[in-house]
């Protein structure tokens, strides 16, 4: 008899341990421990539909306590397949890999770049992160300053909140502001003070569009539809650009004459190209200084770049720390001021396009040229008053030409012509 009672008791206990947790199993504790989460869930569509805690969080409570049971976008996608599919096709869907920026739509892209994010043959991004700036931060800084925004790749809660499903949350453009603001992508500030933003604030979305109206029409989660440039403002190839433009014009055409919208966006394209030209000029100046060994410090005299080691990096992986002063100026120019110029133009904000953007771009170029002059002048002073070795000078110029030729900064014809000129000068040294 005793043995039977013990067996029944143990069976009951085992049953309790083994039985799956239901929502009401969690509420008993979490009503007290996380009351806001419980309230939001109760009032949510999930709560009404009986989608319980386990359905999203799983049943490993130990993992949850450790904070390792966050609900991934893929889990949401099990029910919300359409939204998930649209999301993964967009830039949001690669938020954790955006240090490099997806290059698939760019002209003449280097096929090797795909391997930064993808295993061969796979369209899914790898789990490791490829952003040099992120890798330079402490884990705490990386979590707060980088992941909180970039986790949008894998967390629907980035926009939707964790437990509330009220669509008013995500239909409010302010939900975009947490991330899309600040010196490098101030879309929130630009939109707010643009005609669209001001009119939207006073008259509502039926009068003027907000972020969602233009970039997530009919709730489409592919926020990249309608775009014609990369996150670094580099224009797409012709086919991808045409597709993006036609998507955006379809949106603009909801209110405006398409011809007018096309004209406005085309003006934005021109402003973009003008800005890129300035950046390219600055980039050439810095690359030239690097060729001459004049950066202070040179790349091989600083902590190595996480990916490029001792090489100069001026592309999307450039750093804002452990660089020379002129590179710091260039970082601001390319990462902040070009972004403001281009995004300001596309968001129809005159002040951002001009004063925050283009004017700063040009002043940055002034600063960069001045710094380049200072670095060159320093070299000239270091040589002193001794008569320069002409042969050595010619050789240095030939070396610079070779480097310029190697990075495509001059054409083959120019290279040939300059070499001939220098050889002529050399042969006259008799």
């Amino acid at each position: 008899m005793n043995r039977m009672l013990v067996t029944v008791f143990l069976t009951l206990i085992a049953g309790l341990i083994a039985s799956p947790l239901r929502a009401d199993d969690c509420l008993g504790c979490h009503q007290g421990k996380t009351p806001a989460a419980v309230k939001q869930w109760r009032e949510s569509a999930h709560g009404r539909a009986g989608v319980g805690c386990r359905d999203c969080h799983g049943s490993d409570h130990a993992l949850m306590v450790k904070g390792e049971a966050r609900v991934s976008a893929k889990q949401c996608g099990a029910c919300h397949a359409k939204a998930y599919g649209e999301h993964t096709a967009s830039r949001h869907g690669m938020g954790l890999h955006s240090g490099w920026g997806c290059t698939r739509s760019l002209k003449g892209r280097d096929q090797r770049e795909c391997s930064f994010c993808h295993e061969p043959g796979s369209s899914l991004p790898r789990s490791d992160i490829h952003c040099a700036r992120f890798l330079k931060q402490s884990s705490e800084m990386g979590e707060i300053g980088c992941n909180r925004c970039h986790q949008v790749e894998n967390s629907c809660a980035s926009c939707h909140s964790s437990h509330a499903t009220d669509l008013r949350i995500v239909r409010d453009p302010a939900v975009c502001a947490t991330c899309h603001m600040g010196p490098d992508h101030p879309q929130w500030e630009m939109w707010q003070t643009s005609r669209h933003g001001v009119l939207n604030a006073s008259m509502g979305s039926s009068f003027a569009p907000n972020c969602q109206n233009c970039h997530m029409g009919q709730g489409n989660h592919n926020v990249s539809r309608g775009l014609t440039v990369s996150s670094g403002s580099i224009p797409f190839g012709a086919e991808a650009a045409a597709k993006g433009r036609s998507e955006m014009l379809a949106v603009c055409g909801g209110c405006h004459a398409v011809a007018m919208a096309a004209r406005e966006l085309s003006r934005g394209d021109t402003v973009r190209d003008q800005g890129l030209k300035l950046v390219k000029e600055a980039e050439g100046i810095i690359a030239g200084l690097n060729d001459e060994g004049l950066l202070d410090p040179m790349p091989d005299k600083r902590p190595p770049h996480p990916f490029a080691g001792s090489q100069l990096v001026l592309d999307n992986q450039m750093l804002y720390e452990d660089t020379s002063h002129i590179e710091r100026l260039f970082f601001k120019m390319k990462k902040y001021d070009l972004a403001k110029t281009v995004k300001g133009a596309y968001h129809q904000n005159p002040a951002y396009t001009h004063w925050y953007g283009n004017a700063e771009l040009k002043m940055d170029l002034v600063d960069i040229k001045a710094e380049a002059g200072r670095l060159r002048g320093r070299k000239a002073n270091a040589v002193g008053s001794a008569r320069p070795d002409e042969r050595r000078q010619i050789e240095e110029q030939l070396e610079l030409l070779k480097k310029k030729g190697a990075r495509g900064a001059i054409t083959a014809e120019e290279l040939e012509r300059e070499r001939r000129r220098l050889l002529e000068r050399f042969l006259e040294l008799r």
Partner: protein
Amino acid sequence: MTGTGAKSIGRITALLVLLLCGACAGLPVGGPYADILQVRRLAAHDRATPLAPSPDGRLLALVRGQLRLLPISGGAELALDAGRPLALAWSADGSRLAAAFAAAGGSRLAIFAPDGSVLAEQTVRGRVTALSWTPLDELVAAAVELEQFRFGLAYRQLLIRRDSAGTATAAVLHEAMLKPATVRSLDSDRLAGLMVPRFAPLGDELIYLRVQDPPAFTPYRRIMVRNLANDTERELATVGIGPVGIACGADGEELVLDSGEGRLQRIPLWGAATGNDVPLSGRLTALSPDGHYLLADGRLLRDGALVADFPPQVAGLFLADGRLLVAAAEEIFLVSGFAGGNAVRNMSRQQQEQLMTLRAWRAAGLISADQFRAARERLFK
């Protein structure tokens, strides 16, 4: 008796005479132009020792018991050093003779004036195998170090540079580990001759061989050219570890390679291959300054056509003026009278320096091969 048979008997007879006579006064010469050649015995010398004629063709450094200087036109010999040199080289102006001798822990470098006085002496690493001067008064030497391990033989090639102040530095050009089986397959002569470095006439570039002896494969050698001004290198060819004949063209622009395949390859040191191979029977011994004459297995050929026949085992060396030194057994002969062995371009020191600079720039890819050629032509106008 057929013509071929008669010729063979003639060569064998000549060889027998040489062998039997020892220090015989005459050099047997055959071939279609034998009767117009002038052959003069210069001196006796020790077999398989270096010879170095001075740039002006007046003096010959040779070894007979010790290092000696011989006036080529006649006159008394001058004894320089009791040692037996491993390599010899005259400076471009003929004012100095560098010699390398075996020494404990390396090689002894000595620099002599033509009057026999010792200008400098020092010990350097490794066993020197080749010497050269540059127009900038730098003495460069190729040397070898061998280190035996249980698992193989470390074969280390060194480049030694001695500046005008006398400071010598050594850098490792290449190091290889030879498998024990490879070492056993080579006799000491072949092991010593595994790397046959050649300096370009200006002394600014070195042709040398890198031996590769991978664990599970047959050993082979890569023929490399290296510009000494900027250490730029380029691979020219690969060959086995059998004997090869290597010469640098007199203008320093091409490698002439006899890899035992019955043809002579001319490979530009820094340009694209021209495919101008010529058939060659025999092994290349020497190449004339103008590139038209070569000595192979005792046969003097001009552009592939036979000029004269010497005994097959002779060694040879062309003088700057195109005359030919022939070392037959223990005798040295001077052969002249054949047309076309033009002297190398006489260059001023400034021209030499400018040419060296152009060659360095070409090697480093700072100017193209075409631009180099055009500039060189301008230099000598």
